[in-house]
C-alpha cells in the first residue's frame, strides 16, 4: 500500500514557481522543473512520448541494444578495393554518398561535385561535364553509404575502384567499410574534382592502398576500441581531432610499412594528415552501432548522418528507415575570407562518431579544439556532461580525464532527447557550399529536433 503519509513529503514541482517557493517556506525539499513544452509543443506527440516512457518493453529492448553496442569489438582487418567487398558496387555504375539517400538534383553543391569527380576517377566520363550528364540521365546511380555498410566523411564518396578499410566486429561478425582520408587542400570529399584531386585518388589506390594492404597483412587484426580509448586520453575526440589516434595507428603501421614496397610514400602520406584515423574511427563506430540495430522496441539511435541538405537518424527499433529534417548550419569559426554566407549546411557521415559517444560527446577530452565551441575548456566539459542527459550508458572504456575519467555518454535514446529537450551535439568541419572550394571552417551544430519527433511518430510498441 502507498505509504506517502508515513514519509517526509518531498516534491517535484513543474509549473508555477510560487508553488515551489511556498513549499520551501514550509521546509519541504523541492526540486523544481524548468518546464518547456516537449516535441515542439505538439500535445499528441508529447503524450505518445510519455506513454512510450512508461513501457517496460522499451526499457528492456534498449538494454539489449546498448549491450550489443558496448560488447562490440571492431577490428581493422585490412583494406580492399570497394567493388571486391561491397556487393552494391559490383556490376553497377553506382556511387555511394554520405547521409540519408537523396536524388542527385536535390544534392548540395559539394556532393554533386564530388560525385562527378568520382565518375571521372572511375573513367566512366572524360570530364566533369560529361559526368554530370551521365548521372542526370540515370546511367550512373547513387545511394547512401549507410545502405551498404559504409560511412564516409563530408560528401562521403565511395566508388567501385576506391580502396576501403575493412572493419569487422569480432563479437557479432558484422562488417563495415570506409574510404581513405585524402588529407587537406583540394579534396573530393569537399566537392573538388580537378585533376590534382583525381591524381591524389589515383595515388591512394595505386600506391598507398598497395603498401597498406601488405603492411596490414603483417600487422594482423588491429583492435580499434583501445586506440580510441587511448586517443581520448591524449586530447582527441576522434572526430574533429585525430592527431593522437593517427599517431597511435602510425606507431603500429610504421615498422610494417618500412618493410613493404612504397612504404616510405605511404608513411609520408599518413604522417601529413592528422585526420587519417578519422575514417577508421567512423567505420568502427558504424560497426559497433550496426550491431545494436534492429532490436525490436528499442528507441536507441544507431545512426546520425547528413547529406548537406537533410539530417537523418536511424533508430534501432525502426528497422532501416531514415527520419529526416533539414540539416542545420554550423556555429563555428571560419578561415580568413569566409563567413557563414559561404557555408554549406551540415554534411557527412562523420556524425556516426557522436552516435557512438565520441566526437562532440567526448568534447571534454579535446581541450585543443574547444575554441571551436566558443570558448573555455569548461564549456567542453559541460557539453560532455549535457550529453549524459540523453544517453542510456556511459562507456566503460571511453573515459574522459576531465570528467574524472567518467565514461563518455553513449547510446542516445530518442525518448530522452525529446523529454529533456537536449539535442545531440556534433563537432564538424564546415564545407563551402560551392563544389571544390573545400573546408572553410569548423564548429559545432545539433541534430535537428524534428528527426526525433518524426521517429517518435512512427514508433509503435510491439
Amino acid at each position, binding site marked *: *500500500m*502507498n505509504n*506517502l*503519509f508515513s*514519509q*517526509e*513529503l*518531498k*516534491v*517535484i*514541482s*513543474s*509549473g*508555477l514557481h*510560487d*508553488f*515551489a517557493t*511556498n*513549499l520551501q517556506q*514550509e521546509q*519541504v*525539499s*523541492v*526540486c*523544481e*522543473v*524548468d*518546464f*518547456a*513544452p*516537449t516535441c515542439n*509543443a505538439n*500535445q499528441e506527440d*508529447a*503524450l505518445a*512520448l*510519455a*506513454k512510450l*516512457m*512508461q513501457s517496460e518493453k522499451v526499457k528492456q529492448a534498449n538494454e539489449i541494444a546498448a549491450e550489443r553496442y558496448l560488447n562490440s569489438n571492431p577490428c581493422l582487418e585490412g583494406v580492399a578495393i570497394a567493388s571486391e567487398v561491397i556487393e552494391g558496387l559490383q556490376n553497377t555504375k553506382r556511387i555511394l554518398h554520405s547521409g540519408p539517400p537523396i536524388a542527385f538534383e536535390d544534392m548540395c553543391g559539394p556532393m554533386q561535385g564530388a560525385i562527378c569527380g568520382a565518375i571521372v576517377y572511375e573513367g566512366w566520363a572524360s570530364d566533369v561535364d560529361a559526368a554530370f550528364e551521365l548521372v542526370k540521365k540515370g546511367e550512373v546511380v547513387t545511394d547512401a553509404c549507410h545502405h551498404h555498410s559504409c560511412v564516409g566523411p563530408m560528401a562521403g564518396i565511395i566508388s567501385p575502384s576506391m580502396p576501403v578499410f575493412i572493419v569487422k566486429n569480432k563479437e557479432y561478425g558484422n562488417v563495415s567499410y570506409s574510404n581513405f582520408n585524402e588529407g587537406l587542400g583540394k579534396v573530393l570529399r569537399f566537392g573538388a574534382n580537378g585533376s590534382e584531386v583525381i591524381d591524389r585518388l589515383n595515388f591512394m589506390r595505386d600506391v598507398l592502398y598497395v603498401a597498406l594492404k601488405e603492411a596490414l597483412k603483417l600487422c594482423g587484426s588491429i583492435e580499434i576500441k583501445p586506440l580510441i580509448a587511448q586517443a581520448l586520453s591524449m586530447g582527441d575526440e576522434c572526430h574533429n581531432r585525430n592527431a593522437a589516434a593517427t599517431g597511435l595507428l602510425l606507431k603500429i603501421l610504421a615498422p610494417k610499412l618500412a618493410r613493404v614496397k612504397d612504404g616510405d610514400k605511404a608513411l609520408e602520406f599518413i604522417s601529413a594528415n592528422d585526420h587519417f584515423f578519422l575514417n577508421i574511427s567512423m567505420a568502427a563506430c558504424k560497426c559497433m552501432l550496426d550491431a545494436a540495430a534492429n532490436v525490436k522496441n528499442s528507441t536507441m539511435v544507431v545512426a546520425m548522418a547528413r547529406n548537406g541538405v537533410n539530417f537523418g537518424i536511424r533508430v534501432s527499433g525502426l528497422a532501416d528507415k531514415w527520419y529526416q529534417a533539414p540539416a542545420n548550419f554550423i556555429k563555428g*569559426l*571560419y*578561415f*580568413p*575570407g*569566409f563567413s557563414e554566407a559561404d557555408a554549406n549546411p551540415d554534411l557527412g557521415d562523420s556524425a556516426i562518431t557522436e552516435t557512438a559517444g565520441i566526437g562532440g560527446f567526448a568534447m571534454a577530452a579535446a581541450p*585543443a*579544439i574547444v*575554441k*571551436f565551441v566558443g570558448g*573555455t*575548456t*569548461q564549456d567542453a566539459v*559541460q557539453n560532455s556532461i549535457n550529453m549524459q542527459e540523453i544517453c542510456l550508458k556511459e562507456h566503460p572504456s571511453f573515459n574522459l580525464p576531465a570528467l574524472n575519467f567518467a565514461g563518455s555518454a553513449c547510446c542516445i535514446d530518442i525518448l*530522452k532527447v525529446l*523529454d*529533456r*529537450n*537536449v539535442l545531440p551535439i556534433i563537432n564538424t568541419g564546415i564545407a563551402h557550399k560551392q563544389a571544390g572550394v573545400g573546408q572553410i*571552417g569548423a564548429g559545432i551544430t545539433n541534430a535537428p529536433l524534428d528527426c526525433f519527433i518524426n521517429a517518435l511518430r512512427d514508433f509503435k510498441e510491439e
Partner: protein
Amino acid sequence: MGVMYKSYKNLYKDSVSLMQISAALLNYEGVLNATVAMQTEANLQRAQASGLNLDLKESPNDLLIACELADDSNFDEIIAFVDDKLFAKVTTDNTKKSRHIGSIAQAKEELDDANLALISVAGRYAIAEALKALGQNLNVMIFSDNVSEDDELMLKQEAKKRDLLLMGPDCGTAIINGKPLAFANRVNLGSIGVIGASGTGTQEVTCAISNLGAGISQAIGTGGRDLHEKIGAITTLYAIDLLEQDEKTKTIVVISKPPAKSIAAKVIERLKQVKKDVVVHFVGNNDFYQENNIYFTRSLLETAKVACDLNQGRKISVQDKEQINVSTDRLLKAIYCGGTFCAEAQNLALKANLKIVSNVPIDNACKYDGNDHDMHAFFDMGDDEFTNGRPHPMIDPFERNAMIKKQMENEKTAVILFDVVLGYGASLNPIDDLVEIIKSNTRSDLNFVCNVCGTDLDIQNREDIINRLSQVNVKVATSNEQAVMTALSLL
C-alpha cells in the same frame, strides 16, 4: 586607407585561437577585411584570395596581422585591439554550472526520494507530464485545468494500477503530511482527514476546522469531476482507502459539488465500511441526517462543525435553519472567487425563493448571458468566461474588483456579497484595491458583506484582513453560509 599589416617574429598561436581573433577583428569598426594567422604559404594564399594584397614571403614562425581598413580608421588602435586578445591573460573558470532540470525524469534523478509531483503547467501539457511522474513512481497533484475527462480517466486508471495517489486535474488545494500544496491555508494539524472534490470548499472546511480549534491530518483533492459517472470516484475511493488506514486520521470528511447519483451511492457504500466517523457534504444537500457512521450536512460550515464535534468527542449540535423569504426589488450581487462558495450561495438563495442568474447556474438558476436582467446575480469570477486571460481572481483580483465596481453603479444593487480567499497561492494583497473601491461608495443603502476564507496562520493574516474590511463598513461573516444569510437579511 588600404591594406595594412604587422608581423610578430617567432610568435606561435594555434590556428583556432587566431581564427577567433580574426572573427573579432572583422567585426571591428572600420575593418573591411582581415586575417590574423601564422605567416605560412597557405595562409598567405588564402589572404590573397580573400582580397588582401600582401607582397610578403612565407615565414611560418611569424604571426601576421593584416587588414584592409576604411579611410578614417586608426591602424594603431586596431593593433592594440588585437594585442589585447593575443596576449590576454587566461582565466580558468572552475565553477561548475549547475544542472539544468528541464524534465521530471531529471528532477527525480536530483531528488531521488521525491514522493509527489505538483504539476501546474498549462493543461495541454499536464497530461503527459503527469503520466511521466506516475512512471517515476510519484504521487501526483495536477493543479492544471483544461484536461479532458477521457485523459483524466486514463491518468487515474494508470495511478490506480501503480498504487499511487493522483489528485486532480484542476485540483486547487491539498494538505499532505501537514504541508500546504498549491492554494492551501496554513491550518492547525490534527486528526481530521478531508477529501475534497472542490478547491475552495476544501479550503473553507479546513480553515473552519482549524479556526474552531481542531486540526487536519490530510486534505486530499480529487479534482471537480471525480464523482462524475465517467470517472467513477477513482481518486475519492483511493483516498478513502488511504485515510482508513492512516492511524493519524480519526474523522473523515468528504466534500463535493453535486455528484452523479450512482457514484455518490458507491462512495457512501464504501464509507459505511470504514470504522471511523464520516461527515459528507454534497453541495446542495438541504437536510441534516445520519446513516450508520455517516453524517450528511447542509453547508461547509456545518460540515466543519460536525467534524470537530465528532473528532473531539462532543455531542453534535446543529442548528435548525431559519427559512428566509425575500421578495423585493432590491438586488443581491454576489461576486465570488471561489466556485464552491458561488454554488453554495446559489443553493441558499434558491431556497429563499430568489430568482437568480449565474454564469455557473445550479438547479433552476438562470444562465448568465452577459446581462443579469435585473435579477439577483451570482458570479464565479474564476470561470474562464471572466478571467480574460488573466490569472485566477484569487491570484489577481483585478477582474473581480472591476465587477464589484460595475455592480456598485447599478442603483438597484442593495447588497454586494464577496469572498476573500487567503493562504498560499492567493494574492498577498487581496484587498488593497478593493478597500479603496468600497471607500468610494456614496450610497447609504448599499451594503457590503464578505466571507474571509483563511486562518490567522496564513501569511495574509485573517484577523488583519477582517479588521481592515470592517473599517470600511463591510459586514464580515465567519463562513460563506453566514455571509449569504446576512446578505439575504439585508435585502
